[in-house]
């Protein structure tokens, strides 16, 4: 069945360090920002989505704070950085089934202003069932992704230089984004010269830490056609989970293999039809693995694909993260899902910065990996179509 869900509004909070602001306040600001972008109001919203990092009881508390009083469909799915791609998928099903008409997704957090560190808020690590058997293991995500990078290098000959190219491409784009946390263009040499933090990952292989957030408004087709914004249809979506499977896992591919296949099948297109992709870039290696998982290149060729300049808009075959991505622009609350969706929609609308806008393309893709690729994680893929 052809999806009837359209993206009506998007908003990325311009802040990168929100001293003095509460998380709830940021949720309201992004909600109102996305509704204004759509040309809708609070009273139009009847579906609401947020993650476990939202204050209080998530959807209930936020509905009250923001002022949503017509809700008849809510979803508080939490899967780390990919939560919001799953929300888009779930909202589309709800709209298709007539459970709601106008779905609002919000995300906000302040790891910097609240000194929350590098972990996700709203997640109680002390109850993780594997924890008693791994108390000696530093839990930071960079070590998990460091291990993914090392294994990828071992199996496919991927090099630190190839990983660095992902950052170089992001920095090429970030120079045009006045809100980006890091706007300076960097070279492969500079990435490799930055301090080693989780060998083989350097500091510049890691995303930024920022406060902020963003929101999306999804509506059914009839409503979208009454609004004055460019029409962007959700053409397909998929989600999948992969984990350690009792210790039988390998981690040179992710759950993105399955979420991507589902999304492409639903959209009825292939990776060759995509010329812009927002790919989750918690670390440079995350992008490399996802490029392969989604079929943009063959297994093991992600490094070569990146180092051939393919990710740079106007140069390569697949522009990736033209907002500067999590590596340079924004990774609010240690979750990169919302900016991924927002930039994909900007690209579909033709509203990306002119220097990075991909011309004449019909489909864009956004993809995220939540939690940790080296153990359990949740992938979400969405494909948008400019109508």
């Amino acid at each position, binding site marked *: 069945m052809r999806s009837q869900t359209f993206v009506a509004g998007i908003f990325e909070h311009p802040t990168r360090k929100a001293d003095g602001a509460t998380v709830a306040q940021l949720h309201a600001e992004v909600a109102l920002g996305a509704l204004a972008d759509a040309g809708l109001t609070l009273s139009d919203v009847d579906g609401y989505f947020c993650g476990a990092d939202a204050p209080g009881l998530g959807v209930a508390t936020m509905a009250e704070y923001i002022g949503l009083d017509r809700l008849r469909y809510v979803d508080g799915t939490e899967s780390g950085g990919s939560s919001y791609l799953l929300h888009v998928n779930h909202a589309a099903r709800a709209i298709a089934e007539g459970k709601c008409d106008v779905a609002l997704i919000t995300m906000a957090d302040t790891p910097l202003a609240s000194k929350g560190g590098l972990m996700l808020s709203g997640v109680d690590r002390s109850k993780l069932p594997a924890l*008693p058997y791994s*108390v000696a293991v*530093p839990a930071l995500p960079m070590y*998990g992704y460091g*291990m*993914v990078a090392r294994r990828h290098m071992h199996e496919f000959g991927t090099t630190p230089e190839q990983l660095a190219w992902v950052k170089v491409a992001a920095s090429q784009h970030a120079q045009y984004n006045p809100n980006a946390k890091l706007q300076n263009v960097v070279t492969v040499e500079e990435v490799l010269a930055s*301090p080693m933090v*989780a060998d083989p990952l350097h500091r510049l292989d890691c995303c930024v830490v920022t406060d902020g957030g963003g929101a999306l408004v999804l509506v059914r087709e009839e409503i979208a056609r009454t609004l004055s914004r460019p029409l962007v249809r959700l053409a397909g979506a998929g989600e999948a989970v992969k984990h350690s499977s009792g*210790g039988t896992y390998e981690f040179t591919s992710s759950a993105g293999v399955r979420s991507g296949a589902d999304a492409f099948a639903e959209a009825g297109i292939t990776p060759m039809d995509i010329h812009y992709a927002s790919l989750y870039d918690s670390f440079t290696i995350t992008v490399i693995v996802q490029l392969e998982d989604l079929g943009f290149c063959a297994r093991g060729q992600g490094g070569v694909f990146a180092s051939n300049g393919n990710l740079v808009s106007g140069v390569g075959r697949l522009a990736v993260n033209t907002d500067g991505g999590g590596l340079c622009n924004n990774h609010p609350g240690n979750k990169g899902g919302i900016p991924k969706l927002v930039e994909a929609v900007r690209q579909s609308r033709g509203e990306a910065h002119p220097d990075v806008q991909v011309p004449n393309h019909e489909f864009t893709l956004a993809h995220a990996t939540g939690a940790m690729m080296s153990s359990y994680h949740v992938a979400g893929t969405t494909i948008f179509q400019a109508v």
Partner: protein
Amino acid sequence: MSNRKPARHPAPTHVAHDEPFWAATARGELVIKHCLPCDRSFWYPRPHCPLCGSFDTEWRAASGRGTVYSFSVVANAPRPTAVAVIELAEGPRMTTVVVDSDLADLRIDDSVIVCFESAEDDSMVPVFTTESAQHARSYAAAVLANCEERAAVHEAIAAPITKVTVIGAGSMGTGIAKSFLSNDFAVHLVDADQAALERALSDIQEYLSRLTSKREGWHGPTLTTSIDIDTAAGSQLVVEAVWEDLALKQEIFAKLEAVVSPSCILATNTSTLDINALAASTTHPGRVVGMHFFSPAHVMPLLEIVEGAEIRPETLATAVAVARSIGKTPVIVGVCPGFAANRMMIARNKEAEHLLLEGALPQQVDRVSRAMGLPMGPFEMLDMAGGIEVNVHRRRATGEEDWLVDALFERGRLGQKTGRGYYRYKPGERSPIPDQEVTDLILEASLREGIERRSIPDQEVRERLERVLAMEGKALLDEGIVARSGDLDVIWRQGFGWADWSGGPMYRATLQGWES
């Protein structure tokens, strides 16, 4: 297992079903869950099998052996730590850590073995170490035991010592006095400078009161002080630790010979002076011996016992026995500039400085040195010990030139004590911070030497430091300064804190096949 105290891990939460797991780790064994219907082992433990859903599972002993599936090295960890996924010999992969191992050499598929470390609640937590680290540790333990056994032989002809005089109450003399006092030797401390004596006295008394409160029923032996060297009369052993000046030390020994009995042993803590020349100036050269302590003298376990040409066997035996009775590891070395430990270190430092001229920076050389198993690198150590000043003074005597060290010296960069050396330091802090001024000076030094700087891989830095240590060690053995190659590894372990997991400089040389 390692030279440092192992860390205590956060306490794991215990639940009813995993009681056998913790009981096993307390015995030093790893057990994992096995599913009977699907005949597979799985990780992490839980009552049911996540592979088939059956509750028909049991605990089985695991070999504790496995291979590295992948790993990521934790930067700036207090001890070598890599987060790793280990594939157990029984099949399942587990996320864990590899510790106290040579992580620069760690590769995927390397063999590892489990070991257990305590958590805050005294549970034993499984972690892994490499087989090669385990091999190095066995070697380090064996050469240390061998060294101690050979030292013990000397006890047969050692003279009994109860009264010790230490001359010179500076930083070394103070530490030496502490070493004797804490091991129940009465000490008489002499310094020509009353103020130095008072400083030492209050430092030692504070140290002793800390010991007294820790050791039940211990009161500590007597400590006396004087500014008059003649009060050394009646001592059975005098350890001299005055300024590094041959004429001064000769004068001290001459004064001592006038008051002490002929059987009294005269030991010198000199680092650089010719002990044969010192002995030759005395009337009984057979009683002179070098007892070369390492700073801080009451902490570092190494004691080089320097054997001069005319030493009597009883003198040597007594020095060795005394060293053992104050808890030190005595290593007998012959007379040569720097003896064994410092001679190797000076050679290593020269190479380190040359690496700076060729393209390295202090922070790289120090980082690589730490990865080799040293608690600190050459430049951090020079900054800590005031090595820049020592270097300048030494070269004033020889006329040798060193533009870079002079440039640092002229800018008042004397090390930690001036807050700036090869690094800069925040007031009151000891962690080295790279400094642009030093980088600029190093670049200029390269230019002056006409050396075109290049980026030097860590691997090469390490190999060159290890090679120069091996070569100097080999020369010491060839010249007969040190009896056994293992003694050199003991020297680096006990004198400079070389970690067991990498064995020592000579062990490394053997691994690299540099025997000749």
